[in-house]
């Protein structure tokens, strides 16, 4: 894996993948010490750790492909909201435990087929990261799908909360499958799949899981979008304010 020539398309793609992992990892870490059960606290922290590890790999690639001498920490801690390329789904507030789990599930059900497709990327660096991450994400999807079923098909209270969660989050899922010029460019070069090509696998998994969970998939198909080009909901700024505080207040601080 020697240093390759700069590639704006790969840099942009690596940012999109890395930012979604980073923001979801950070959101999960907000639960640390607050989960309804110790095992779930540990599971959320472990999932966050995996996602932030994957962030490191993606942002390293983004820096290398950008070729401007920035480091992964610069990208994580010194970009403002409009510089972030994550999906709107992952920046939505945690809400209750059910909404956090449903958000994780809707993301995992996209993340795994995305990584499987990326294992065939024409860029060996992308393929290697995808190979590594897909093993971790298979565990994430197993856990989140299991809990969606158990909580959806659980008590009246848990069922009501899970239905509210899927209703709330549904409009943020369409963005995962909408292509822009960067996606077209990446797909044409064999670097990444067409976003739309992942929709069937996602839809099949989600339909099956929601049915097992006795939950209804919302019929609305309107998609909130913009995250992947830096147009975010108001929530991301609050995430960054907390996550970036130390490096903003004490630039270059190390420990």
């Amino acid at each position, binding site marked *: 894996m020697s240093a390759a020539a700069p590639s704006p398309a790969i840099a942009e793609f690596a940012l999109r993948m890395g930012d979604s992992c980073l923001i979801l990892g950070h959101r999960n870490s907000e639960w640390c010490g607050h989960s309804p059960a110790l095992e779930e606290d*540990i599971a959320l922290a472990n999932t966050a750790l*995996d996602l932030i*590890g994957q962030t490191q*790999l993606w942002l390293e690639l983004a820096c290398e492909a950008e070729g401007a001498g920035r480091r992964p920490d610069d990208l994580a801690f010194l970009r403002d909201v409009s510089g972030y390329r994550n999906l709107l789904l992952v920046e939505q507030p945690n809400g209750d435990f059910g909404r956090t789990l449903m958000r994780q599930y809707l993301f995992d059900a996209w993340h795994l087929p995305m990584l499987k497709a990326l294992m065939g990327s024409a860029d060996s660096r992308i393929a290697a990261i995808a190979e590594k991450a897909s*093993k*971790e994400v298979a*565990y994430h999807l*197993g856990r989140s799908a*299991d809990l969606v079923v158990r909580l959806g098909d659980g008590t009246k209270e848990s069922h009501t909360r899970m239905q509210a969660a899927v209703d709330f989050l549904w409009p943020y899922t369409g963005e995962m499958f909408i292509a822009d010029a960067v996606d077209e460019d990446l797909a044409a070069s064999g670097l990444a799949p067409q976003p739309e090509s992942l929709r069937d696998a996602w839809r099949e998994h989600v339909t099956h899981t929601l049915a097992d969970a006795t939950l209804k998939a919302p019929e609305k198909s309107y998609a909130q979008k913009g995250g992947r080009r830096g147009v975010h909901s108001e929530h991301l700024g609050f995430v960054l304010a907390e996550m970036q505080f130390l490096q903003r207040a004490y630039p270059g601080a190390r420990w």
Partner: protein
Amino acid sequence: MDATTAPRPAITEIWSWLSEIPDPEIPVISLVDLGIIRAVAWTGDMLEVTVTPTYSGCPATGVINFEIDRGLRQHGIEKLSLKRQLSPAWTTQWISAEGRAKLRAYGIAPPVDGMAACAGALQPPIVSCPRCGSAKTERISQFGSTPCKAHFRCTECLEPFDYFKSF
């Protein structure tokens, strides 16, 4: 020993030095037992050690690199380069037979082979209790004290234990 004139230590000797470096999280097994050292090779007078991470976010990765560097320098290796390799991705199938026996003796159930592709939560593997050997165990949580372990309990001797999950 004069490093400038000393012959380069043999690769097999370097592997034996590496096999004495314990994993920082589970010190009963070595980095070689864990299967994360993928290659050792001389390039001129530079020793290149190729290491693969277990989990991408594993906090022990930095410590592992430090321990390799320190361990080999103690044996007189002056020029050392550590290379990270992501692909092929680490799998628990690379944990040696000796490593598995050490894990079990330490109270951690070793990974059940053939489950690498089976991360589904609904059907956990049958894991024997590392204390009493009973197969009557249940999974408490898919995630345990570290990313690589799940949390189990034996329903026969009632002891909780860690399971090094198949990956």
